[in-house]
């Protein structure tokens, strides 16, 4: 049943829904949240524009698209940074520029976790699953629910980063 539904939606909508669901399993230091998307295509924009303006707990949820040709300035307010597959950037350098140490980084490249990313979307057959870098969460001082860890396709801990 769930499989049929995912088929009906585009890939970017599924990713948006996953991000929306995941953010509820993270303990945030602030109430209001801002999601910053880097390298969004048209589909992504339309998908994230469907994003609810508030969390399920009723806190404000702001979606910001970052220009890929821009100065790579990443605002301090971004708590969730989604780097799409189309960004074609050096992840490590990109992450080094993020100013908020307690932001959650989400990516969709094979090397994203190794390069210090926190959540990475992967394709498993026709489904989109995600990997979690628990070590990175730990370093950021953020707590993610174990339920998400259980659902994750793969959880990287400490040595896995090497």
């Amino acid at each position: 049943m769930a499989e049929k539904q995912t088929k009906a939606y585009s890939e970017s909508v599924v990713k948006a829904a996953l991000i929306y669901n995941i953010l509820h399993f993270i303990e945030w230091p602030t109430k209001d949240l801002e999601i910053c998307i880097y390298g969004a295509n048209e589909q992504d924009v339309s998908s994230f524009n469907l994003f609810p303006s508030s969390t399920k707990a009723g806190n404000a949820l702001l979606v910001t698209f970052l220009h890929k040709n821009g100065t790579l300035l990443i605002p301090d307010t971004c708590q969730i940074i989604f780097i799409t597959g189309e960004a074609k950037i050096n992840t490590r350098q990109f992450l080094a520029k993020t100013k908020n140490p307690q932001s959650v980084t989400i990516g969709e490249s094979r090397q994203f976790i190794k390069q210090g990313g926190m959540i990475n979307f992967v394709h498993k057959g026709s489904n989109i699953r995600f990997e979690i870098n628990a070590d990175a969460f730990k370093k950021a001082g953020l707590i993610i629910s174990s339920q998400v860890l259980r659902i994750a396709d793969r959880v990287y801990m400490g040595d896995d980063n090497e």
Partner: protein
Amino acid sequence: MNKSVTPQKATIQSKLVLIIVTISTLSLLLAATLFTLVQLQEHRSTLIENLTSVAKITADNVQAAVLFENERDANKILSEFSSDSRILTAAIYTAEKQLFSFYDISKQNITRLYDFSAENGTYQFENDLFHIYQPISIQGENNIIGYVYLKANLDSLYQQLRHNILVITLIVISVLIITILLSSKLQKLISAPILELAQATKTIRDDKNYGLRVEHNEYLEIKQLSDGFNLMLSEIQERDNHLQQLAMYDELTGLHNRKYYIDLLNQAIARGLRKSQSHAILFLDLDRFKHINDSLGHSVGDEILQQTSQRLTLITRDDDVVARFGGDEFIFLLQDIPSLHHVAEMTDRILEELRMPFSYRHHSIVLTPSIGISLYPDNGETSEDLLKKADTAMYQVKSMGGNAHLFFTDAMNVEAQQRQNVEEDLHSAVIKDEFFLQYQPKVNLHSGEIMGMEALIRWKRKGKDLVPPNEFIPIAEETGLIIPIGNMVINEAILQTKSWVDAGLYNHRIAINISAKQFRQVDFLDNLKAQIEDNQISPEFLEIEITEAVVMENTDDAIAKMKKIKDFGIKLAMDDFGTGYSSLSYLKKFPFDILKIDMSFIRDMQVSNVNASIVKSIISLAHTLGLEVVAEGVEQENQATLLRDMNCDLIQGYLFSRPLNSVDVSSLLQKGSNLFDLMDRESPSSPTTKP
């Protein structure tokens, strides 16, 4: 044996055990029931709490699985319930109320779905099933992302309950067993002393031994009970002894009584029959005892009876029995006598022992016994017969003057029979009026004229001669016939006197003898007054003669009665003075008018001067006391002369006239006889005059 011992009545013991066990059982059951109910309630709420929290945890755990639609994860979480036997079914629904994942213990399909009409977070009981409906929410109660449904089995609850009931039942049973064992020991604390009392009662009832006592001091109440019981026993014992004493012994003397004696005699007769033994029955009566009793009072009489008993007991040997038969009669039983000589020895010893004077205060009293003896088997073979014959022999001794013993002879039976006949004839004599009066004049020693008369009773016994008064008066006294006879005498004497007075022949008193029994009648004086008034005669014509024996008993009453008689106008004479214990000094106490000196003094006057001087002093003292003196039984002229010299007032006797019938008295009165005429004419030829 006593049949009232009913078949196995409930004992105090079993009742006490029953009470203790019942109370224990009831309280245990009540406690167990309450405990079980409380436990059931506790287990139930614990189970509810437990399952509710399981549902909540499950709901939390499956948030991500539901949200990320991860069925595999949800199934994995639910499969954890396989280790919890309580959970029968678990199911997860999406927010759209679609079944998302489920677990069933028996791998069956879900039969009951989530009841979405039920309030969220509630539960339902259905028989032994328990349904929990728990919504899955995230970031606040309102964000329901799915539902968890749990179906639990309440078996564990009931199993727990069953287990508890089993344990409690075991506890109750073991406590009851302990209670029964303990109570049968404990109840003894209470029942033992009571049972002891009951046992004592039974022992006493069976053995009739009232000497038994119960000792119990442990508890106050039991002590009171046993003390009361003992006290009761003491009283019963005392009463028993007393009754036995009364039944076997004479109260006054402490000797055996008549009943006991007769029992012993019957036993002796039975034994005698078997072993050819001979026994002797001695019937002893104290001579003149009645006189002592009458003249000195009953207390003296009782004292003498006691002293006699002591003396008789002293000389009685072990095998022999002495008993008080009644009154002044004692009776011996000499068992298995070897010879008549042995009996004679015994009677001699009795006579010897009683010869010594009895002393009572200032009195020294001599009493002699009359002893009649009958022998078994010679004189009879029944106690009744033997006693009667000993009695007859005793009477024979009495009639011969007493102070002796006689063996029963058949001849005595004849005399006894005669006496019996007299008694029978006396009864019919009263009815047939066979009595009549004779009158003996009394004459004045100075004028020689008739100054009075004494009425004397006579009995003309049918087909026989006149019976002398001394032969029937005692029997009349004994039988009580003296009362009708005495009334007849009074009536007859009054009637006769009145006729002489009315005829102008006589103007003096008529003296009537009154016996002791008659005088003591409560209505004696009223009776006398009635007769006097009925016959319209003045009481001054009457004189009553009584012997000292009449007034010696109940002296105060007697004096009071005498005074009333005197106040009524009747004179009182003391009859036969000198035969009893007559002392001149006590004459002063009694209001007599006349003193009649007994004929024995008159007869002996001429024998010695001493006797004459006694008569003289009696006359002079009587005069000092203001009494008129009459000498009885004057038969000779010289007696009359002597008495006249002694200043005696009147004489009565054969010298002037024998007792005469009324007709002869009438003619004597008409003639106007005078003593001196008679003396002048008859004295020379008097046959009794001494040469």
